[in-house]
């Protein structure tokens, strides 16, 4: 599958889990970033990235700020963004939707949930 994922999370464990899950569902190209700022740098240096999976709570730049930054730049505004976070209350979800995330997954997630969300985003 011709997809290159940018996995953004300040937790090394979570990045490993997301990458392992992506491998288990058939993807094989990944770039990792530890916060929103790092992610923006990676997007500039690697133009092959065509899917972003990001956590919300991160130092330096949060996932929400990252989403807004991606959506405000012409070169990246169409990128699919999947928010994967512990924040499951309605106010947070609405805030993420207003920032134009493509979809939203709460931790802990199963490989099936991640796969379904990626498939749904790509089918749209």
């Amino acid at each position: 599958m011709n997809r290159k994922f940018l996995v953004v999370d300040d937790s090394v464990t979570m990045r490993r889990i997301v990458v392992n899950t992506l491998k288990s569902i058939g993807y094989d190209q990944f770039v990792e970033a530890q916060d929103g700022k790092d992610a923006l740098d990676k997007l500039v240096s690697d133009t092959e990235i065509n899917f972003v999976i990001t956590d919300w709570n991160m130092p330096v730049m949060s996932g929400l700020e990252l989403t807004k930054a991606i959506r405000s730049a012409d070169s990246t505004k169409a990128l699919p963004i999947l928010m994967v976070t512990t924040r499951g209350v309605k106010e947070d979800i609405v805030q993420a939707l207003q920032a134009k995330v493509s979809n939203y997954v709460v931790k802990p997630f199963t490989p099936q949930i991640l796969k379904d969300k990626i498939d749904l985003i790509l089918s749209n």
Partner: protein
Amino acid sequence: MSESVKSLNDIVDKLHEMDNVFKFGEKMIPVIEAFVSFITDFIPFIEQVSGSIEETRSKIPEASNQLDKVTNATELAMTEVLDKIDEISALLGELTESINELVEHRVSAENLVNELYQELGENEKAKILVRKIIEQMDVSLTLELMKNKVNNIMSSTDQITMSLQVQDITAQQLAAVNHLIISVQQKLGGLLNAVSATGIHVNEDLKQEKLPNVHFDANASYNPSANQQVDVDSIINNEKASQEEIDKLFS
């Protein structure tokens, strides 16, 4: 009344006022003495309290560091567990390939034995033996069971991987506690500064601790139930529907 008499009356009034002030002062002296005595007794108490605050405050960075160490240690341990899971997954992949090869070999061998059976012609004794060989070779059920067991182990490793997400969730909870105790340290620092401003000696280095630049979800909780995602999806669908309705109004 002449001007001189009026002036004298004013002076007398002022003297009465002064007399009253002195009388009041005489009455107040014991109260002021008691107040000074109270303050004198109270200063050592404040110094003692500020000493306790200093001691408590000095322990907070250690507690905060301990929490950071817990987070780092669990993250390291989780990385090791994930390394092992990767190894197990790779081995299970190899095992699955080996089982598939066995299945292919068995099918090839069975085809050859079937050909041999056809070549035996009227040799009934040999045919019986070949049939027995075919029966002995039929390990398809065993291989199927092996494949199922491998799949079950793979499913268990996926489950373990999912459960390891608890590390991120507990790390956020610990970060929330850390943030709280550093806030307490800041407040205690402010209190010590206030005490120091009164002239009472405070040993503590009064520089204010800055809150660390950490971001966390204080409400993070580990809930492996699929219902959580169902609830989130329901909110997303409702919100998208209402946004679409709003968009229609503007289009």
